């Protein structure tokens, strides 16, 4: 064979190697798993916001986002050990929405764990959701890691039980952004007591991963990027040497480190936040926490949405984001800096300048 053909082969091989990690992790078997049998991956899909129109009609866009994420998750190699669904399966918490969403999710191969979102909860306070998916908070152990699922989107009893004439109105009020009638999310005392008890049984060197719908940190109250008792929950987690919190709700990529706790958000399959600047009607006060995302293309329904698979290596998390119409991103725990960081965009200078809308 000619040298030309050989060099073509080499090129393709190299190109394939470069693609690994950002895309289908076919070689993670060799790269990450060779060192320790305790390393594993799981997939994370969140914020599908399945929305009922009437009869058997649902918003097509949200359906397609969840269907696509499920289909792609099923192609992961190696197969993830389990799949998380991060909350807001429904838009307004109705049975048709939860049923329809559950049907789409039923195509997932393997074990699925569910997190409660406010859009699932505030119609019937999680009753039907519980019938479909089980308890609202719980913990489980997997390959030496302690996983905790919290319902972080509860709020003051007065708001929940005494404020609203109908369950439907309660749901709508909580679904709104910048709503003066809204109320901040919280984990609440009952779950904090349970959490303390649950964690007391765990060795402090055991890696702990907490799944919540809202950020267990205070970012922006107006959009409930916020958990009112976040500080108290964090205090229960700080004694552990390796703690990660993964949350949905924010529909964008965020990461942060507070003490021993690494925070990572996951993407939505439904729509992106923040909204394109061109749509903002007033000055925005969202803290500059995120790498600015290019303006979502109004034509491509999937633009600025996505899902992620998560590589758990030595107790730390790498989040691999699959982003439609955008470059895939990886947020990896940096063991030197002891915090998560985007592998491509950690330097201010290296960031993509947000697109200006004319």
């Amino acid at each position, binding site marked *: 064979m000619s040298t030309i053909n050989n060099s073509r082969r080499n090129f*393709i091989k190299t190109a394939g190697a470069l*693609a*690994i990690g950002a895309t289908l992790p076919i070689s993670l078997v060799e790269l990450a798993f060779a060192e320790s049998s305790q390393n594993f991956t799981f997939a994370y899909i969140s914020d599908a916001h399945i929305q009922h129109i009437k009869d058997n009609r649902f918003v097509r866009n949200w359906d397609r986002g969840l269907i696509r994420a499920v289909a792609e998750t099923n192609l992961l190699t190696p197969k993830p050990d389990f799949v998380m669904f991060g909350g807001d399966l429904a838009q307004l918490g109705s049975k048709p929405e939860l049923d329809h969403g559950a049907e789409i999710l039923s195509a997932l191969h393997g074990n699925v764990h569910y997190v409660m979102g406010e859009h699932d909860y505030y119609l019937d306070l999680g009753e039907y959701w519980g019938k479909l998916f089980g308890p609202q908070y719980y913990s489980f152990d997997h390959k030496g890691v302690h996983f905790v699922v919290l319902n972080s989107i509860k709020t003051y009893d007065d708001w929940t039980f005494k404020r609203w004439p109908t369950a439907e109105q309660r749901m709508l009020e909580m679904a709104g952004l910048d709503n003066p009638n809204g109320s901040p999310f919280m984990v609440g005392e009952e779950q904090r007591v349970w959490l303390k008890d649950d964690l007391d049984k765990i060795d402090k060197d055991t890696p702990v991963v907490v799944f919540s719908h809202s950020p267990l940190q205070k970012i922006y109250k107006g959009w409930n990027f916020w958990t009112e008792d976040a500080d108290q929950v964090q205090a229960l987690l700080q004694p552990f040497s390796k703690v990660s919190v993964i949350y949905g709700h924010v529909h964008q990529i965020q990461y942060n480190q507070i003490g021993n706790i690494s925070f990572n958000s996951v993407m939505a399959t439904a729509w992106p936040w923040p909204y394109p600047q061109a749509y903002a009607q007033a000055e925005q006060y969202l803290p500059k926490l995120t790498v600015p995302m290019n303006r979502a293309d109004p*034509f491509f*329904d999937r*633009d600025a949405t996505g899902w992620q698979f998560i590589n758990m290596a030595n107790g730390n998390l790498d989040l691999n984001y*699959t982003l*439609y119409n955008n470059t895939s991103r990886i947020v990896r725990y940096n063991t030197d800096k002891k915090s998560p960081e985007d592998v491509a965009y950690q330097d201010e200078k290296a960031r993509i300048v947000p697109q200006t809308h004319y």
Partner: protein
Amino acid sequence: MRYALLPVLVLATLFAQKQADTKPLAEPAAVNPQSVPDKNNLLGLPPVPIPANNPQTPDKIALGDKLFHDKRFSVDGTVSCSKCHDDKQAFTDGLPVSVGHHGLTGTRNAPTVLNAAFNQSQFWDGREPDLEGQAKQPLINPVEHGLADHKQVLEIIRTDPDYLATFQSVFDVSAKKLTIDHVAKAIASFERTLVAGNSPFDRYYFNGKSDAMTDAQIRGFELFVGQGRCVSCHTIEQDHALFTDNRFHNIGIGINQIQQDIPRLTQAFLEAKNKGGQVDTMVLTDKKSSELGRFAVTDELSQIGAFKTPTLRNVELTAPYMHDGSLKTLKEVMVHYNNGGVDKADERVNDFLSGGIRPLNLTDPQLNDLVAFMKALTSSWSGSKYVNPTPTQAAN
């Protein structure tokens, strides 16, 4: 400002020279007898991008022309580039998928070479970045020209004194130092001359000739940029239109038929690729792997079943349509899009469908108007020695 004006002046000079031998060869007159074609082949096109390492020269273009039409560069002496990119058929072959040596068929529809110079990537899956890279692959593909390797191409050239003399004068390269890259550069230079604007649409839109398009075409154009959402991928800019975003989309063609096989196919494909398999061979010799589309090139899950947005210029002349040639007429294409990515409205939409493809709720007369507009994109093309294509073979 002076610098900005310069290219415009150069182009204007170029056009002035070309006007002398211009005559309309497609038939805008039949479309609209009132319209007087503007005598500018490049109306509606941006400047042709010429790579710095492969400048255009008349001799190089002529050499590329000869290479492009030379059947000797194939295992059975029957396949030239022009076999599937036929000058007389708008540089396509009119077949669903192309036929190579010994009647072997590939898996993909031959795209027109017309205006391929503007593509930001080549092939339906974009696996080569430029025309030079593209020209090298079919020569050694087992179902196209079928040569074992590029050495065989060079050996054929070395038996032909005319070729050797021309390569010597064009590239200043001896027979010994000749490489496949010289061959590719010459072919690419020739292909960069195959550019064609100046359609009724161009005269209507860029020259403000309101009678250049028929009423149906004008209605179709309004749908194209409006309810039909076509323009989101088949783009039109303020001063030119290439009708492609140069991106890759899963629009529900081909992939719809292999949905059950995707887990097995993606897995097997990546394993084969990691073992050194070549993408062009794998996708052109296996129909099902071909449907993986852009995924085969990038390994990205989000590009399963995605193919490059083709230009729509001269689309009237390039039936059948889509990467697999599965749609015979432009009307079938419109129906597919109107259904939201399925040929029949009750078919199952594939899980990986690109965002943006959704039912359009267009009526049958509206679909016909869109087809009419497609026919306003046929160039009044001149300035080439080739017999210009006529739109008769497209049974629309």
